[in-house]
């Protein structure tokens, strides 16, 4: 039995072990790797940043996932909230899945630890869980009046009485909805809300769905997408590069400047996606090697079988 034949008969658990090591070692021994930002991510950042410091503009994050896709989507939510809180952008959060409700609280609290001045009802409103059956009435109703479409927030307070609502009425002010989703990509928002009210829609999605979402960027139905852990890593970098230093966004600087993740000035939770991408890079190289070796073995075996026949 030669080397390639042995590989063909290798117990799959050795491969699991190698993959586990290829992921664990880069996570424990953190190294600097470059994160290249892409246009769909930059577009979302740029639009949110344009609302900085304005009381008459807001964004909404729709948490459309449960804990199963948290690894990819949670770092995005944290990065967007960090950007918004740092740049004083008003934020609404909402979810239509029961199991997403604690994730909304978790994301807000994770970021709020670093921003003690941020106040609920003033800087952000967590609408919380609303039943899925009310999805359509809420999406359409917000086009007229947000505080009528969802009367109370997660704490049971009347939305209309909250200070943040003074200058925010409908999609004219809350002009960007970001759906972070493990199963769709903002489809309901750009199917129902965008054609009727002109609201901008963006999507934070798992990598599985990214290829399907790109046609909607080309048509302008989606402002941009954050695709999987890579999208989250890109957004984290943009926040560290510009928002934290209150600098204006520049596409050229974003693409040419490297932000280190090995220093301790940035808390782990704000660079989790970039550290995760280190592991992603190493394991991708390993998988490419597996594919190459597997194919070489396959062709060698096929040629030998031909010769024998």
């Amino acid at each position: 039995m030669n080397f390639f034949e042995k590989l063909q008969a290798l117990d799959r658990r050795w491969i699991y072990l190698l993959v586990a090591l290829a992921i664990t070692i880069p996570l424990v021994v953190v190294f600097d790797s470059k994160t290249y930002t892409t246009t769909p991510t930059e577009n979302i950042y740029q639009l949110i940043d344009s609302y900085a410091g304005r009381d008459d503009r807001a964004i909404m994050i729709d948490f459309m996932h449960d804990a199963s896709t948290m690894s990819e989507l949670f770092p995005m939510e944290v990065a967007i909230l960090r950007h918004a809180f740092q740049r004083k952008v008003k934020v609404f959060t909402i979810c239509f899945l029961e199991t997403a409700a604690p994730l909304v609280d978790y994301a807000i609290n994770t970021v709020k630890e670093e921003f003690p001045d941020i106040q609920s009802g003033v800087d952000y409103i967590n609408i919380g869980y609303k039943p899925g059956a009310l999805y359509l009435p809420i999406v359409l109703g917000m086009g007229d009046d947000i505080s009528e479409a969802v009367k109370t927030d997660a704490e049971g307070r009347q939305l209309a009485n909250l200070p943040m609502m003074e200058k925010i009425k409908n999609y004219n002010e809350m002009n960007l909805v970001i759906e972070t989703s493990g199963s769709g990509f903002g489809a309901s928002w750009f199917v129902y809300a965008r054609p009727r009210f002109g609201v901008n829609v963006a999507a934070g999605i798992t990598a599985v769905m990214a290829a399907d979402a790109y046609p909607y960027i080309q048509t302008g139905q989606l402002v941009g997408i954050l695709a999987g852990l890579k999208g989250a890593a890109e957004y984290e970098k943009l926040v560290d590069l510009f928002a934290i230093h209150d600098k204006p966004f520049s596409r050229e600087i974003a693409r040419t400047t490297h932000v280190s993740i090995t220093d301790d000035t940035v808390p782990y939770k704000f660079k989790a996606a970039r550290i995760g991408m280190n592991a992603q890079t190493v394991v991708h190289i390993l998988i490419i090697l597996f594919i190459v070796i597997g194919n070489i073995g396959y062709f060698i075996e096929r040629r030998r079988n031909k010769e024998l026949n």
Partner: protein
Amino acid sequence: MLENISNLVAAFLTLSIFSFLWKDNPFYRFAEHLLVGVSMGYAIPLVYKNVFIPFLYTPIFLQRQYALIFPAILGTFFIFRFNRKLAWLSRYPIVFSMGIIGMGVPLSMHASVLVQMRSAMLPIMDINSFIIFIGTITILLYFFFSKSHEGVYGKFTKIGIWYMMIGFGASFGYTVMARLSLLIGRIQFLVHDFLKLI
């Protein structure tokens, strides 16, 4: 202290699920069943508090909106799915659900078909739009089955197949990335939150 206990439980359940990679075992099955039970146990009181109380109990019993009794009764018909003789009653609430789907058809047509078509009909100004143009035409030709895929026509459909293969490859690549991301997330939890190695 509380966080340490919750991390310990989460780490135990994570490792229990991972143990399936070795072989099926009682730890894996325990964690799997616990997940289903906890999800349901969490959802039921949340739905009771956020749906039943504000949208049914309060309007009917406190605000005396008795008209809501009819949709409430209609909703309970779903439960007849489990009774062979009365299962037909469950079709009535389904009809209303389908009505909502029907309402979305025109807007979905607009967003998913018409806007995409319009975008595919723009003048070819750069290399990207040229690539999209060729891809759209050749894939549409591939799915035209009334003519055999031979000769010049067959060459065009072959280009369509290549486009689709590249598309499937991109989707598969993204899928691998997504699945690995999930594993990375769990291992990040183990090494950072639980073992505190970083």
